[in-house]
């Protein structure tokens, strides 16, 4: 196996990890709690920007070609922690706006528009995060600490990603199996029943939104530190559909389904189309990717709406609280 191929595959593995975290986060919101978060990409973007703004030096240090707020030049792991925090915090205003008792598709529309407003503002207010051009020269964790080749650094970053994946898995699994997770599923199925039990469905949903947002932030922070650059064109609203498709294809409400979805949709579909010999104009394959994603989504919604690995039904026998696994 040549060095080039190993480099490529290790990079792919890093992206898989980043997508896993993001998809598990969305699963908390969408799969468990039934929130139709069409603005999910904004959470990841916010985490990404947070990590960037915490890790970059003040804008003046780079001449005047980037203008942005912040720039605290914090060392690892503070930018990532900041990313997690910002992702979670963003959930609060979003939840206040869109978690109202709106009909499902109205809620989806509201989220979609929030996503557009976010992109619009980021581009219009250039002083915020350097507008449409985006941020660059973002410092990487452990950069320069170990004298390694680019491939060597890939392995280091892959290690970091794996650790974060494990953390995300632990969080998502913990929530899913906990009483809180059961309540979320209950809210998804019947809000009135949950209210009758004396619980506040709105608060429950908000918590799910925050937890999912935090994971999205972690994913964004990692992505930005890997790529070292970030801009609005990287987080347009259709990216959310990509994650949703992954969940619908892989199966929501369970971690294995999310993982399978991450493998199949972001990595699988795009890489499969790479194998085709180049034809048409250079960007044609890119357009066809999206056609394929749409077709895949449609096919799954028709044939297997619960995904490849459906959520396991939880059964309680004899009134005991033991979950049947």
């Amino acid at each position, binding site marked *: 196996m040549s060095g080039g191929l190993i480099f490529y595959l290790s990079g792919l593995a890093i992206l898989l990890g980043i997508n896993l975290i993001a998809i598990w986060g969305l699963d908390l919101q969408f799969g468990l709690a039934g929130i139709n978060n069409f603005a999910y990409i904004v959470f990841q973007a916010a985490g990404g920007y947070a990590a960037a703004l915490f890790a970059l030096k003040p804008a003046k240090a780079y001449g005047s070609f980037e203008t942005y707020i912040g720039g605290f030049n914090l060392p690892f792991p503070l930018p990532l922690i900041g990313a997690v925090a910002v992702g979670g915090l963003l959930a609060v205003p979003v939840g206040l706006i869109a978690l109202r008792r709106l009909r499902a598709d109205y809620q989806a*529309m509201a989220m979609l528009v929030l996503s557009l407003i976010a992109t619009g503002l980021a581009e219009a207010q250039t002083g915020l995060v350097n507008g449409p051009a985006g941020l660059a020269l973002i410092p990487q964790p452990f950069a320069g600490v170990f004298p390694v080749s680019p491939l060597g650094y890939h392995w280091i970053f892959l290690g970091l990603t794996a650790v974060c994946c494990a953390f995300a898995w632990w969080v998502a699994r913990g929530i899913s199996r906990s009483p809180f997770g059961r309540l979320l599923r209950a809210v998804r199925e019947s809000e009135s029943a949950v209210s009758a039990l004396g619980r506040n469905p709105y608060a429950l949903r908000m918590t799910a939104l925050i937890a999912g947002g935090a994971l999205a932030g972690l994913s964004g922070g990692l992505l930005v530190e890997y790529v070292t650059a970030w801009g609005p064109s990287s987080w347009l609203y259709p990216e959310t559909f990509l994650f949703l498709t992954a969940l619908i294809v892989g199966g929501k409400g369970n971690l294995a389904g999310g993982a399978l979805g991450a493998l199949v949709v972001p990595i699988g579909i795009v890489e499969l189309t790479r194998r085709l010999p180049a034809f048409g104009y250079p960007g044609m394959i890119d357009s066809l990717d999206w056609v394929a994603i749409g077709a895949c989504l449609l096919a799954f919604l028709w044939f297997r709406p619960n995904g490849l690995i459906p959520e396991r039904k939880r059964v309680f026998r004899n009134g005991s609280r033991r979950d049947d696994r």
Partner: protein
Amino acid sequence: MTFFLGIVIFGVYSAALLAIGGVGFTLQYGVTNVLNLSFGSILTASIFLEYGLTGHSTNIWIAMAVGAASGAVISLLIGHVMVGAFLRRGATGFSIAMVTIAISLMLQFGLEAIQGPDIYAYAATTNSTMNIGGVVLSSGQLTTIVVAVVAMAAVHLMLRMTKLGLAMRATAADVALTRSCGVSPPRTRAVAWLVSGALCGLCGVFLGIGEGSFSSTTGSDFFITLAAAAVLGGIGKPYGAMLGALLIGIMSQAAAAVISPSYNSIAAWIILIAVLMLRPQGILAEFAAERELVA
């Protein structure tokens, strides 16, 4: 004075564009209860079909007819056939929205794959212009406004005077009751897809002609603002959509003039969010519960 007159008149022009599409969108949403996120792609597809079928003909009547017909056919295929299949299986709300998203991705990027990312332009016509109190309107823009008014009047007449219109209003209000009156919901819905598609195609034609050029993203760019107008006025209320279009059209022009041109679209979106938050049933609708908007 010309400045303010300009804001109003061009606000009306923007509103005309928004209204044609917005009324189509709200009619379809109201009658079929489906949030059709592929509406923008249908718009784009209509422009492409019209351009492809009529060549570069700038005869406005032919363009209108072909555009409307294209939109109607595509909309019927998507709405009645594809979405309808999912509906018959019992899919609801969010799943249907995802279905329309899937269709929209396929349609828009399919168009891009076939046509390329290039821009297509209409041949320049020597536009005659009309001067209203110092503000100059092109004949194309004037036509847009006139056609919009005529289309709105036609929709109004259809809804009020024809049996079909009555069936549509009834289906929008209460499906079960309508069915028990012997009106066929599927047939009514099919007509709603047709009519809304025709309006969509018509909107596309004027959008393309008005901007002078179009590409595979034209429809999607326009869609959310159009949806904002519809939601603002109340889903299922065509008059609401007209009012919403007028408000958004004039407010956008004013925002561009007063705040900053960059905030043009953002202003429209913030209005939409505010409406969804405070009064999701829209300005003209009476009850939110009636449409089960609030769970």
